[in-house]
């Protein structure tokens, strides 16, 4: 078995699905950056290169899928919370449908 091939494939897949995963996590409630990274790790065992999350969030924001707001904390270090927008919710639904379709076709191929 070619370990390096599988490894490359996995890392491509992770990269490609990160925005999908992030939007999915944001479905339940609002998150700040560090919390979001922790949550991705917890749910998926994907080690996000932490610094790459912020450019991703910036792009999601520019595409109007999420919004953000600064919330002051007692520590004096404010947190930036991200929330799904309505466009984000609808986009996520479409992504989910595509994902389900893909999964079903792969299962059909295997049969």
């Amino acid at each position, binding site marked *: 078995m070619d370990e390096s091939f599988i490894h490359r494939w996995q890392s491509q897949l992770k990269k*490609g699905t990160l925005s999908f995963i992030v939007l999915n996590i944001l479905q339940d409630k609002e998150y700040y950056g*560090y919390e979001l990274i922790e949550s991705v790790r917890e749910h998926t065992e994907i080690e996000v290169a932490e610094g790459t999350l*912020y450019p991703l969030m*910036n792009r999601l924001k*520019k595409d109007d899928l999420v919004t953000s707001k*600064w919330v002051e904390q007692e*520590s004096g*270090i404010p947190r*930036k919370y991200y929330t799904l927008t309505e466009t984000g919710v609808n986009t996520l639904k479409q992504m989910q449908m595509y994902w389900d379709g893909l999964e079903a076709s792969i299962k059909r191929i295997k049969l």
Partner: protein
Amino acid sequence: MKQLEFKQEAAQRIYDDYIKRINRTVATLSNADQQDIQLEFNSHIYESMQGSSKESEIDSLLDVLQKLGAPEEVLTQLVADKKLEQATKTFNPVHIFKALALNISNGISYTIFVILYLILGIGVFSVGAKIFFPDKVGFYVYEKGWSIGIGENSGTEVLGNWFIPVMLGVLLLLYILTTLMLRLIRKLKKKKKALQ
């Protein structure tokens, strides 16, 4: 921005140095964008320190910063994206120049824009030249065709001193058109990226 405080002096120095590197990397952006990135990275460092299981402060900090990555690398794309956004919004030539420099490696289309702006620059130069050499520079019409700049004897200069305002008007219009095009390309690229 409220700076973090560390008990160990060495940790404090490492943190201060990291923040300085962030500041240097984002220095080209608008104040609001700079502050936003600084605050968000500072918050990330603070929250990760709280969540760290390492015993010593300096071990935790080194771990956190290593996971976050070098500011110069992590922030490159973010800075290039935000700079281009600012440049096409403000029409400020200085921002446009810097944004193109940051994005030049992101595709051939940006190289084409560099050339377009250079041509506009030559136009501006010809206006300057007209002021110093009014008899030699202008809009020349020949039997076949025309030229802008230093004319040949066979042609007739038709604009006279009007060359300056007419040329400036045309250049301004082309500048706006080119920048609007740059804005469109930026949006198209972003869409493409989102689909990948």
